[in-house]
């Protein structure tokens, strides 16, 4: 998107650099030739030529586009039937789709962030699961299998890079596709009623994000996709148990007190459970909004004790001090919070001094008037 050759690194070895340039030019010329011939009659030739190009450079999106056009022409608006022959192509729909999935998977191995390759897969899976074809037919077992295998692919790619946000978003898309097509997550779920599929999808994400976080408590993406599930009793469809989430976060902050992910998540949990129900615009971090009614399971005094215990173990852990200030605010102990924001934190964390002083100023402006309004 930025118009910069991806992976163009200055190599100290000039010969290596020149070879890379020449290879780049050669690939570009071949891509150009295949692109120019994409509407020729010999579709088989185009498919095999473009496969060669796309394996090396999955970002030639016009070639993916043409491949989809060829499939669309062969499908002729009929509902997807894996066994049907896709004339003029000498293969069944299942075979053709397998070929596309295999090609895009190969492309993603060397370039797991190629938007065009992921988009190609989304298209293939939408078509084979019958989303939008208005036929009302149940999706085939081929589609169900393909979608489940897609989830496994996401898992594999995330193992290589657990912050690949394309894959996280892709996984959510696949889950929604399965929900839309009423495809259960595994064979054992007989009743594919939408509601139970939906809740099993939420459960799956709960399980998936937990496994990621237990492995690495700094996985910011996992916290995000977990937060989206919502806290039970706070969010209408919430499935997160507050106590369990607090335990998860507490483990994380004691293991890695300097990693911001867990702290952002803790701040979010506290906000969710202390924000006023009537306050539609969302509370400010660190401020207790009017009409505070904490969810019963959240004991702010408990939380404070825990943070203070952490500070005894690792004094000067700046995130812990910030969290302490935050909780003191929620507990209406404004003076103590103010001291932390104005004096302690700027000294402890000079690069963020401006931010802490800012929070202090805003606190001072609001402090007296927000107390006692319920």
């Amino acid at each position, binding site marked *: 998107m*930025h*118009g*910069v*050759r991806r992976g*163009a*690194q*200055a190599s100290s070895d000039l010969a290596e650099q020149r070879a890379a340039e020449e290879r780049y030019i050669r690939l*570009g010329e071949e891509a150009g030739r295949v692109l120019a011939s994409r509407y020729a009659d010999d579709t088989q030739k185009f498919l095999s030529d473009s496969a060669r190009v796309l394996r090396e450079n999955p970002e030639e999106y016009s070639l993916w586009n043409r491949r989809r056009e060829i499939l669309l022409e062969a499908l002729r608006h009929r509902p997807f039937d894996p066994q049907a022959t896709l004339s003029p192509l000498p293969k069944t729909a299942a075979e053709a789709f397998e070929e596309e999935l295999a090609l895009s998977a190969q492309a993603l191995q060397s370039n797991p962030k190629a938007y065009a390759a992921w988009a190609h897969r989304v298209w293939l899976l939408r078509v084979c699961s019958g989303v939008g074809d208005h036929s009302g037919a149940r999706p085939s077992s081929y589609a169900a299998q393909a979608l489940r295998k897609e989830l496994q692919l996401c898992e594999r790619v995330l193992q*290589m*890079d*657990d*912050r690949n*946000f394309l894959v*996280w*978003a892709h996984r*959510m898309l696949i889950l929604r596709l399965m929900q839309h097509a009423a495809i259960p997550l595994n064979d054992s779920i007989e009743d594919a009623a939408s509601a139970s599929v939906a809740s099993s999808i939420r459960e799956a994400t709960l399980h998936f994000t937990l496994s990621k976080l237990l*492995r*690495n*408590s*700094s996985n*910011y*993406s996992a*916290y*995000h*996709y977990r*937060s*989206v599930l919502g806290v039970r009793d706070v969010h209408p469809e919430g499935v997160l148990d507050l106590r369990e989430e607090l335990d998860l976060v507490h483990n994380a902050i004691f293991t*890695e007190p*300097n*990693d*911001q*992910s867990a702290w*952002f*998540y803790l*701040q*979010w949990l506290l906000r969710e459970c202390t924000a006023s129900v009537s306050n539609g*615009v*969302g*509370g*400010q*971090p660190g401020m207790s909004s009017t009409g505070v009614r904490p969810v019963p399971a959240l004991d702010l005094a408990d939380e404070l004790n825990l943070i203070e215990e952490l500070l005894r173990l690792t004094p000067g852990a700046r995130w812990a001090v910030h969290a302490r200030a935050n909780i003191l605010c929620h507990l209406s102990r404004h003076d103590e919070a103010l001291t932390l924001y104005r004096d302690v934190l700027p000294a402890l964390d*000079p*690069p*963020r001094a*401006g*931010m802490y*002083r*800012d929070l202090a100023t805003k606190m001072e402006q609001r402090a007296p008037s927000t107390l006692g309004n319920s």
Partner: protein
Amino acid sequence: MGKDEDRDDQIPSRPSVYNSGDGEEVELCPALWSVCQRRVELGRRACASLLFAVPPLWACTPTGVEQRRVEDALLAEDGLRAVYYLQRAHQRGWRVRDAEEALQQWVRYFHADPSAERPLGLTFHSDRLFRERHLHFLGGILDGTRALPSEFLSLEASQTWIAYWVAHALDVLGRPLTAAEAQGIIKLCRASQSEHGGYGGGPGHVAHAAATYAAVSALCIAGTVDRGAHQVTQRGALTRWMKCDLALADGGGGRFRVSLNGEIDVRAVYCVLATASLLGVLDDDLCRGCVAFIDSLRSFDGAFGGEPLTESHGGYTYCAVASLRILRDAEWLTAAEFAALVAPARDWLTRRQLRFEGGFQGRTHKLVDSCYSFWLAAAARLCDAPFREPQLAHYILRYCQDVEHGGLRDKPHVPADLYHTCYALSGLSLTQSTNTEATLRPVHPAYNLTYDTLHANPFFSKPI
């Protein structure tokens, strides 16, 4: 003692000449050269508290590996400068131990607050913007006198963007467009305008919200030199296109596609609102529902993703916040409502400025990139979230300028390009708010156009 002296006498195996980049070449004495070769390791020790503490599990994943690589590249650069200054400061022979200590002091100083004391009392050369080189990099494009190399074919659908990146970079640098350059923009936009309304990325391309925003912005800049630029856009057709093709008919408004049948995300909202505002056609139909949509994009950290349920990201957060600002200026939101909507993102925004690099990252734990100097800094400015202007300027000036060819780049070791030149300079302009010696024109954070350009736009009447 014996060991140091051994090292002092060691004959270097490679040439030990240092090129300062200012055209000066200095031969390093062997002791300094041996220190210079270990500068990354020494720099790491000096800046330990500022560097990113990689969780053990990430040491071999892209997150950890790439972050370390970027830090090493910056440290290498810092170390070279430090050694150069050391050489200039003292002509006598060096003891390796002293040289190491001095180098570490210098590297620490480079990343400290402006008020920090300079090591060794040496006059510190201030970081320079190589304006002439950048003007050279940007020249000949808009008036077509320079043939662009074939790799620009990949930007064939982004020609209106190229027009904007170049025109705006020149504007920020204070270099007025020539009549030929203004004509070049006008010609390109005319050829890219759809009769159905809106602009495509180039002649023959389908009308697209982002390409339109770029075209209209480029025409604003051209309009400062050639008033005919303001007459190019078919405002009626464009408005109809946005309301019929881009706006989603269901659900109360606020959601837009980027093009007919295109994707729905917050970039579309921003491009529609900004374009409409610049052309004076922003009305209730377009504004309705935008706040609710933007609110649905909020992540647990208070910032915004591109679509509902996705992770927060700097670029999308900019689009969300700038859209809200445009809605506020159009009186669709009160100042208090605006403040309440953007306040939750402040913390996240401030923390995106990296402690060591000084520049901004686009997401938590990801890499610095000079283009975020605009997206994140402007979003921070709009939300009233503080960030450290000198450190941001240092990142851009010290590591992102291509002194040889001109232009600015994402980070060291990638080539400069027009997109990064535009946004790095825009970000640099934002760091000059309190600088009385500002050399760049100030930009409006919600539009990324200079205030002069906005004032010259006859259709733009929003408070500035």
